[in-house]
């Protein structure tokens, strides 16, 4: 979802207040974000949390 919008991991991390490493770990499935962070990601992409994480499964 991030890649299709042409946003880098660093840019997304900066927008959400987390590091590029954290975004990378979330995308690689190595880290489960907290509920507030997941909701912030949903607001950023204008999508439901289930859509964001389902799309990458």
């Amino acid at each position, binding site marked *: 979802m991030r890649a299709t919008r042409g946003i880098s991991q660093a840019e997304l991390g900066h927008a959400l207040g987390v590091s*590029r490493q954290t975004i990378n770990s979330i995308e690689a499935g190595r880290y489960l974000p907290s509920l507030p*962070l997941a909701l912030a990601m949903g607001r950023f992409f204008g999508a439901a949390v289930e859509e964001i994480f389902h799309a990458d499964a």
Partner: protein
Amino acid sequence: MRTPSAAELTVPAVAVAGGVVYLVAGLIGGQTWVGGLVVMVAFAAVLWLVRRRSETVKGLLDRRDERINTIDLKATAFAGGAVLAALIVAFAISIARGGSGAPYDWLLGLGGLAYIVAVVVLRLRG
């Protein structure tokens, strides 16, 4: 240049303060060795410089990234466990040598008490 936040300055400041404590304690004990202060100031300086190149160090200092905060928490728990294990071994060796087990006994007791207090407090906070 962005002004460093109070959170970013905390660990380096505590490190330097620790070095000052080492120096003062040494002076009180009649020692003028400044190596402890030098080491802690160098540690603080390295942290401050490396934070620009390392997201992990930056995250450990500014406490803003939840994942790095979790890593810090787990690493702290692991370090605490390692110290407790070493104390248990040291206590056992002291007892085996006919000693009283001091000061390892009260240090282990302090560790156990701290754990119980932490569980109670965290349980009450939900």
